[in-house]
């Protein structure tokens, strides 16, 4: 198998920008621990999907060799900037663009100076330590009209392309758990999951992930998405599943906590 490690991480910038808030700082530390595990798996490239790279036409794949800049988040600009310097595995990305139509998905490469790399991708790169020359990325957009099933097909074709190129691949899904956020300003020290029901849903999903029970997870996700407003229908988990050919042995949860009321977890899959 080309995939040597897999991770689910949150894409909010708050753990990165406000580490002094204890709960958010813990999530940042958890992501750094996950990053060390990713590094130890010695991937040649990292296959990344962020729920925050939104698309509505076609499937976009980042084909720019190097993307540099300073990003300011639309919501959390007061906490500072997010500098980035991201290298892409363009050979693999182009293979994904070419393979997508064979799987029923129109696709295009994105290779433009100044293209707005999304917050989730930048946060994951910074805290996991990926996207450098030694661990270049293949990044796919989140087409809002794609289902979990289509998302699985896309990551599966990317993993297959990596295998054809003889590459070891780490897979990262960037997104949250329960999606309810507080609507008014809060003291970060008083952050909590927005409701007990959301917390229960998150705990249940994480337990199923830890157990590696994919069948139960597939059954539970639609209800989780509906009742807990799971971030983008939990498509970032489908991204992981597709690359892992629909199975994994279990998982280690490096961290779980609230980000402005929504649920966030750092998960390392056992494959």
């Amino acid at each position, binding site marked *: 198998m080309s995939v040597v490690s897999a991770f689910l991480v949150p894409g909010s910038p708050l753990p990165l920008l406000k580490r002094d808030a204890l709960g958010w700082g813990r999530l940042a530390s958890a992501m750094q621990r996950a990053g060390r595990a990713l590094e130890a798996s010695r991937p040649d490239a990292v296959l990344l999907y962020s729920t925050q*790279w*939104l*698309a*509505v*036409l*076609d499937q976009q794949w980042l084909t720019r060799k190097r993307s540099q800049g*300073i*990003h*300011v988040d*639309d*919501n959390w*600009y*007061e906490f500072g*900037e997010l500098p980035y310097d991201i290298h892409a595995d363009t050979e693999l990305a182009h293979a994904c663009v070419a393979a997508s139509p064979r799987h029923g998905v*129109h696709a*295009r490469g*994105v290779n*433009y*100076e*100044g*293209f*707005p790399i*999304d917050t989730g991708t930048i946060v994951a790169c910074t805290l996991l330590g990926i996207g450098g020359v030694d661990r270049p990325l293949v990044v796919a957009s989140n087409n809002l*009209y794609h289902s979990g099933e289509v998302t699985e097909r896309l990551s599966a074709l990317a993993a297959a392309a990596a295998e054809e190129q003889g590459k070891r691949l780490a897979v990262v899904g960037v997104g949250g758990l329960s999606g309810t*956020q*507080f*609507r*008014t*300003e809060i003291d970060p020290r008083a952050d909590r999951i927005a409701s007990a029901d959301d917390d229960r849903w998150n705990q249940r999903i994480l337990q199923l992930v830890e157990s590696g029970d994919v069948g139960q997870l597939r059954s539970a996700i639609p209800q989780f998405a509906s009742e807990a407003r799971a971030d983008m229908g939990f498509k970032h988990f489908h991204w992981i599943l597709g690359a892992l050919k629909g199975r994994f042995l279990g998982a280690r949860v490096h961290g779980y906590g609230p980000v*402005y009321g929504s649920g966030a977890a750092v998960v390392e899959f056992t494959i």
Partner: protein
Amino acid sequence: MANGEILAGFLAPHPPHLVYGENPPQNEPRSQGGWEPLRWAYERARARLDELKPDVLLVHSPHWITSVGHHFLGVRHLSGKSVDPIFPNLFRYDFSLEVDVELAEACADEGRKAGLVTKMMRNPNFRVDYGTITCLHMIRPQWDLPVVGLSANNTPYYLNTKEGLAEMDVLGKATREAIRRTGRRAVLLASNTLSHWHFHEEPAIPEDMSKEHPQTMAGYQWDMRVIELMRKGRMREVHRLLPQFIEEAFAEVKSGAFTWMHAAMGYPEIPAELFGYGTVIGTGNAVMEWDLQKAGLSHLGVAGASPGAPADWGGTSLVD
């Protein structure tokens, strides 16, 4: 200070295709034209803006999405390159704009007084969203007027349409009071498409107009129905129909700009002038003006005289 005026409000949609079709020097990609009827509609809107001679343009854009409150650009000068994340092949635009920070702060203050969460965006490296930039370029390519940029709080999507639009109603009234208090002569821009069903694949040549058409018949029919009502000045009925229009035509007015603008204008029951209508990747776009000056409704009068929402619209005040 003299009381302010809202001279007019424009429905001013923001497909980046219109900038692409025009080939201005600020935009890097080159086109063979396209979407001419809509671009000619904007030419007429530009001429009207010349006549109105406002001090400031206020634009509410659905592509600066915020979750905690309503945000306002709060840095005097902002510049940079705006690359559209959806259409990077069409829109890579060098922008430079001046912000009327005093008016923006007044809007935020009045919104807070009315019970809204508001925030001023003070980061000079902030990337202004392409909806704001496209709308402003199309209405005033000279970029010689200061602007107030408002975010689209995601309440209409996060809660529901009625609660979301009720919040935009409050935001509009707060905006009206801020304009009155600061004595500005303002023009409002609602950066919204009408029906928003769109293609899922882009034509090989984006400006190939032989491929352009409404995505759905139902969306087109809805657009014609609401435009006709607007042309006749039957705005109360438009606002009453808005939730159904949003639901059945996936209309982008859900994001709140249209309601914000009409609340700020005091829900004038006056005919709009249609400058033009056209589709862009299947979505329905109309460029329209409500001329408050001509109707004798531009002067904002005394504090607290902001009219309510149309009686049958169902809007509610956050502070009642």
